[in-house]
């Protein structure tokens, strides 16, 4: 195997891997993501009908969707939704809830400090760091240029 050319081999090996089913993935992501967002819109409409103002409705919807995402993760259902829905299940706030609850559950046996608490953000951590980081930069830019 000494005369194996790595670049050629990697090209050859790539051809052996079945191609991802992009069209199917996109359609399923649209349907699953769309379904989650439709449920969230239903929650918002319900809160509005109860007479809450726009800010409270947005906040209330987030809280309800985070609860649903966490509950379905705990029941062992959300990973199955994610398998079908891909990004459609990962991008909504339910997916963010899943990315925190899943490691929290996984590392429960290592204790509440070094397990649950320390490992809770292994997947969501980068989203938080760069999300908060970029929002600070956007905020500074808006102060500088908008006055």
């Amino acid at each position, binding site marked *: 195997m000494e005369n194996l050319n790595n670049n050629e081999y990697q090209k050859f090996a790539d051809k052996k891997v079945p191609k*991802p089913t992009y069209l199917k993935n996109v359609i399923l992501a649209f349907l699953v993501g769309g379904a989650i967002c439709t449920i969230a819109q239903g929650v918002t409409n319900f809160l509005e009908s109860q007479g809450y103002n726009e800010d409270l409705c947005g906040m209330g919807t987030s809280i309800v969707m985070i609860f649903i995402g966490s509950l379905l993760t705990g029941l062992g259902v959300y990973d199955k939704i*994610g398998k079908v829905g891909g990004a459609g299940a990962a991008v909504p706030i339910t997916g963010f809830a899943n990315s925190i609850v899943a490691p929290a559950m996984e590392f429960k046996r290592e204790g509440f400090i070094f397990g649950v608490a320390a490992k809770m953000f292994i997947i969501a951590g980068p989203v938080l760091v760069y999300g908060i980081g970029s929002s600070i930069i956007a905020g500074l830019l808006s102060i500088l240029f908008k006055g």
Partner: protein
Amino acid sequence: MALKRIGNQTIKLLNPPTILSNYSIVGPKEGQGPLKDYFDLIIEDDLWGQESFEKAECKFQEEAIRSAVDNAELSLKDMDFLIAGDLLNQIVATGYSARELAIPFFGLYGACSTMTESLSLGAMLVEGGFADKLVCATSSHFSTAERQFRFPLEYAAQRTFSAKWTVTGAGATVLSSYGSGPYITHVTPGRIIDPGITDAANMGAAMAPAAMDTLINHFQDTGFKPSDYDLIITGDLGIVGKSIVMDMMKEKGYDLGSVYTDCGVEIFNPRAQDTHAGGSGCACSAVVLNGYVLKEMKKGKFKRVLFMSTGALHSPIITQQGESIPSIGHAITIDINNE
């Protein structure tokens, strides 16, 4: 003088040790696969009543070793050595199962190549007169491997088509200096080969060149041809790796044809069981050997088998640093005759 060495990297055992007994335990998913009738014990609860998956894996391995020794109608005290390993950091599944067994112990880390690595070293110890009887074993567990190498179980991630499914189970084999076969007649230890694959979800492609290197050296050293074997079986290359080996070996003049398959391909039904490229993990080759291969040899279906376990010797930390995956394949010849 190394009297028992032939060619580049093969050992010919002049007094081939016998495989006295074998035992395999698998988890629920493997117990629904195509080889389900061959496994000695199928555990429906993958925690097996333990507090954690790591402790369950220890129990899988310990029970496989105890049962293999029982099957040989021997006791643990008769074992001169235990040679075993697993996938977990510091091979803890093995250390903790060995804690319960009180057998002089050599721990191995060969990732998924551990079964053949342990049988290779075990066969040499027996043949060299350093042991009369010893036991070789390994284990892996889907849920311990996922958390160490990939994601939490409940995390909603999609797996790629080249990804494989870690086998939950354990296999153990008792070797002896006396007995009526099957015999381990040749050992071809592998070299590390690294074709530069950096995707840890495509280990079949990473390991295939190491498997081919060992196969070619084995054929050159021993003079055997693929057709001299009734079965040539690699460890856990899966569907992607098997296809690469078939094509590239043919290019090099070795038509493996219908005698060749891969444990990772055989153990699951990829469509019905949604396992993508097939099975992997130390237990993949261990349970296919101790379940399917050795049982079919004793029934007479296979007379001479080239058995190989393949391992990817990386860790998540070093692949995050951009390193590629160094791989290895160890091979042994198992023959029902000792000539």
